[in-house]
């Protein structure tokens, strides 16, 4: 499993897709299984693209790796949901089922020594950055063997060895932190960048605006990745703000920005990859808004009565894993056996993690008072 999940290094892609006319991504846009290149403002270099019939060997490996990562995230989140329903995981749990394309695509464009920050829905980003599913699951189950020794839980996932610096339970809480990590990366001059994931709700938070301002002013190598799933907690975005495209905020602060189809994992990887390359070259921050949808409620247990069933069903058909699988099948880039194996391996890996977590011991009472001060 380790080999297939190795994060590919960033390099120039020779794009072989057929280019379709740029279309704005609307939530009711027609479903198409062909990957669409959406018009991207000010990030992607203009290149001529030649038509290719088959994926190169390197692309095949990379694409399989992305598929396997999305399956690992999906399997993990679904298993966590089951355990929650059975009372074996408790607390506030926010799952990202349906949004795997963003985490897998974005982290697929990073180096192991890049810094990643998440929000409250951060399991996917931690896994995609290389966190160990065993220790992650154990943390969600409140066990001492968890990453945070059972003291952080779902909303405060930290996997420093994988470069996942921290998640947060406060909307927008990690955005200023990411600036600090980017500052360190800039000072160290080894090309490290920081990436911070947040939702559309964060666009309403003061820290978001302060951070965009400082990042562009100081030209920090930070990539702001907004997973716009149309809902900030329990209300649609339109109930919170008149600004329906968060990328517009970045434009206000003079930062390169784009809005892309977040459920197209290759589009995500391409856009983030381009932003990361710019940042590594010292050209400053970028903002990538990824349109996506969470197929579950805001938190586990949320009856989500505020959403129409037809809307949820509509987005299920645009599921990033389903779409990518169809593309891989059409391009014959990955065999049906390998695709089925990807899901199988993911479920087996997650089962191993669940067994590890549930059989791990609880923390001792003394743990309560340990590690308050360094």
């Amino acid at each position, binding site marked *: 499993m380790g080999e297939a999940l190795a994060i590919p290094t960033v390099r120039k892609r020779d794009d072989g897709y057929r280019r379709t006319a740029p279309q704005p991504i609307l939530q009711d846009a027609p479903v198409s299984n062909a990957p669409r290149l959406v018009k991207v403002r000010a990030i992607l270099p203009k290149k001529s693209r030649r038509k290719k019939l088959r994926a190169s060997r390197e692309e095949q490996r990379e694409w399989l790796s992305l598929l396997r990562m999305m399956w690992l995230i999906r399997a993990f989140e679904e298993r966590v949901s089951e355990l929650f329903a059975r009372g074996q995981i408790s607390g506030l749990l926010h799952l990202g089922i349906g949004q795997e394309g963003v985490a897998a695509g974005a982290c697929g464009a990073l180096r192991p020594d890049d810094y990643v920050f998440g929000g409250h829905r951060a399991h996917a980003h931690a896994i995609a950055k290389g966190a160990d599913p065993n220790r992650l699951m154990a943390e969600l189950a409140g066990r001492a063997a968890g990453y945070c020794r059972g003291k952080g839980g779902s909303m405060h996932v930290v996997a420093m060895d994988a470069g996942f610096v921290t998640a947060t339970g*406060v909307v927008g809480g990690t955005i*200023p932190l990411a600036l*600090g990590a980017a500052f360190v990366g800039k000072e160290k001059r080894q090309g490290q960048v920081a990436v911070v994931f947040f939702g559309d709700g964060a666009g309403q938070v003061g820290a978001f605006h302060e951070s965009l301002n*400082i990042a562009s002013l100081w030209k920090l190598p930070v990539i702001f990745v907004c997973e716009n799933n149309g809902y900030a907690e329990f209300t649609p975005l339109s109930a919170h703000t008149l600004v329906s495209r968060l990328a517009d905020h970045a434009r206000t602060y003079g930062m390169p920005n784009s809005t892309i189809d977040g459920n197209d994992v290759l589009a995500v990887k391409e856009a983030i990859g381009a932003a990361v390359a710019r940042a590594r070259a010292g050209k400053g921050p970028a903002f990538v808004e990824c349109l996506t949808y969470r197929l579950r409620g805001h938190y586990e247990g949320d009856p989500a009565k505020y959403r129409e069933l037809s809307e949820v069903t509509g987005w299920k058909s645009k599921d990033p894993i389903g779409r990518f699988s169809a593309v891989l099948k059409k391009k014959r880039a990955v065999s049906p056996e390998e695709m089925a194996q990807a899901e199988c391996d993911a479920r087996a890996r997650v089962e191993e993690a669940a067994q590890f977590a549930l059989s791990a011991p609880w923390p001792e009472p003394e743990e309560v008072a340990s*590690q*308050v001060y360094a």
Partner: protein
Amino acid sequence: MREMAYYEAKLEGLREALAGDERVCLIGGSFMSQSPRRGLFSEIQKSFRDRILSVPISELGYCGLATGAAMGGLRPIVDLSTGSFVYEAWPQVVNEAANAFYMSGGQTRAPVVFHVFHGVRGGGAAQHSGSPQAMFWNAPGLEIVLPSSPRDVKGLLKAAVRSDNPTIFVDHVGLLEVRGTVPDDEVIPFGQADVKRSGSDVTVIATSLMVQRSLSAAEQLAREGIQVEVVDPRTLVPLDMATLLASVKKTGRVVIVDECHKSCGVAAEIAARIAEEGFEMLKAPIRRVATYDVPVPYSPPLEEFIAPSEARIAGAIRAAVR
């Protein structure tokens, strides 16, 4: 040992902190507030230009940036200047920095120093005269430092940048001209209170500027035959209860002086701990002298009245020994 002013000791401490560790950087103002001495900071600025960063008016943003940079291995000192401005940065200090080490199960340290000038400064009124240290004391994970003398400010500043914990460095503009002796190369460990004046009749526990006011009151009361012992905790977290209790045992009478508003102020917590741990030693009820529970007013006679003055402190001491 050299005799010098507080502001000189502070600038020396900043210079030595920057020179001694290339991970140290300064974010924000001049660490001298708007005092007439602020021009002296420019010498440090010239020597360490790349490591001194000015910031827009975004306390939340740059305190978070400093915290993130600390998580990434730097040791920033953030100058928020007016203590009340730290209220703008509260979520990053208390929800992110203070929780980082614990919440991460020890994976992440946030060795950032947040520097503020607290208290009544002269015409600052309600929004520029805050003393946030008591509120920070209620957030586990933060260390809180209050120097009161030239020796303390230099030694504690050097200790603050060495600490692996997020630290609130609480200074006061009223201290900048205080003179005292300063040893070379001293790093004062946290959790070490300092008996600033020995006495046998009553223990006065004071922090920050109130230490200096208590010492003046003690001088005056000595002429009345009352021997006052002034104990300065220097750090609230970690707190040196042993030294405080040793003094309480000696005198049996306690007056706690602090510039936070009285309710849930620093004096309240110290009083509670002494009552819990040193009740048998007490010969009289514990007394507190604090800023009244009203917003700080503007007009000079009102402002003078509101914080603990030398007269009020002396009055409380006399009541304690009666």
